[in-house]
């Protein structure tokens, strides 16, 4: 580790002293973080805290995908943005916010929707992916891209007072499509624009996603592999559940996958658009 020490510069040693003291991280772990590239899809309620904590932790390269611009109603929970940045692309705002806390972090911004056409090109540049998106079509797309490129996927979601978290496609475990082979009928999907969300609930799930990614990056066991974490903000209760194994008949991670690098039409598959702004009859 003498050679490894030399690769943390003096500034890093001072900045990350609270990590270097920990046997779970130490110099080796901090170097792994420095060389790790993490992609966050969605710079909203989940992506904001996740990006903040990943940047603060010393992740060397962060990718941010978002097609949207900062809106006043985002500031109730999207703490990486600011009033003065209303109207500019979220990825630009995110890069500014990240630079404020850690200017050494390399930020790659993708000011676009993640699509069938660009997903593999984008994801292949990163080691770990966080799903901080807000609709089923994008969630299936991210999953399929991660499976095809063999990247672990830390997936969070939140609505109203509740949050959910699972790490997919890691250690031989299931992918999102193993758990949800068929998409929900569009009219049963509620998004935050319709149902609302308490900001701190997205914060808790987003920071948990950052923690899980940091652990994967430094080589600690993933806590949410093949596990579903539920957070009920009304009761203040967290519960964990064991999910099924990888399904040999999964369309993307199975033994004879039907989804290949051409991917599929995700909006048609889900019967809904890859954004959370489409009005529809949504009850659940």
């Amino acid at each position: 580790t003498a050679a490894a020490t030399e690769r943390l510069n003096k500034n890093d040693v001072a900045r990350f002293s609270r990590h270097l003291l920990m046997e779970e991280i130490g110099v080796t772990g901090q170097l792994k973080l420095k060389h790790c590239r993490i992609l966050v899809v969605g710079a909203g309620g989940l992506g904001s805290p996740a990006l903040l904590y990943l940047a603060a932790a010393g992740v060397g390269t962060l990718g941010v995908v978002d097609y949207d611009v900062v809106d006043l109603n985002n500031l109730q929970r999207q703490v990486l943005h600011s009033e003065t940045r209303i109207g500019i692309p979220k990825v630009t705002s995110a890069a500014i916010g990240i630079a404020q806390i850690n200017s050494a972090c390399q930020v790659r911004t993708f000011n676009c929707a993640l699509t069938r056409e660009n997903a593999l090109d984008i994801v292949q540049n990163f080691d770990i992916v966080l799903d901080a998106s807000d609709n089923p079509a994008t969630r299936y797309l991210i999953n399929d891209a991660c499976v095809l490129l063999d990247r672990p996927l830390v997936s969070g979601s939140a609505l109203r007072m509740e949050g959910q978290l699972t790490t997919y496609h890691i250690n031989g475990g299931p992918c999102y499509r193993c758990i949800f082979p068929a998409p929900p009928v569009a009219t049963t999907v509620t998004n935050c624009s319709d149902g609302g969300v308490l900001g701190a609930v997205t914060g808790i799930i987003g920071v948990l996603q950052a923690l899980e990614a940091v652990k994967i990056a430094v080589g600690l066991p993933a806590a949410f592999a093949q596990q579903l974490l539920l957070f009920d903000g009304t009761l203040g209760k967290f519960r964990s559940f064991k999910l099924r194994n990888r399904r040999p008949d999964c369309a993307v991670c199975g033994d004879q996958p039907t989804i290949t690098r051409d991917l599929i039409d995700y909006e048609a598959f889900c019967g809904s658009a890859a954004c959370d702004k489409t009005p529809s009859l949504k009850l659940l």
Partner: protein
Amino acid sequence: MSLEVTLEFSGGAELLFDKIKSRVVALPVPRPDGAKWTIRAFLVWIRDNLLKERPELFLQGDTIRPGILVLVNDQDWELIGELDYELEAKDTILFISTLHGG
């Protein structure tokens, strides 16, 4: 005689059931047709006894609709036989509506 199990809802599924997140239900045993209380039969019982309206938001055909996870005693029902699993006394069956927001 009855078979008592705990029925729980989360992620918004409780909105279809008077917003009650957890309740104990007593299922009559033996069943009129003499069959076992599989989850398949339990879903029918839920539909007939608890689900007031819009069953399509909970069921699709004879199974649960896509997007709802079923957990029996904190395990994915896929690990224990799905619709064919036979309920036992004190089982906890949790239906989780998956969230997609961020």
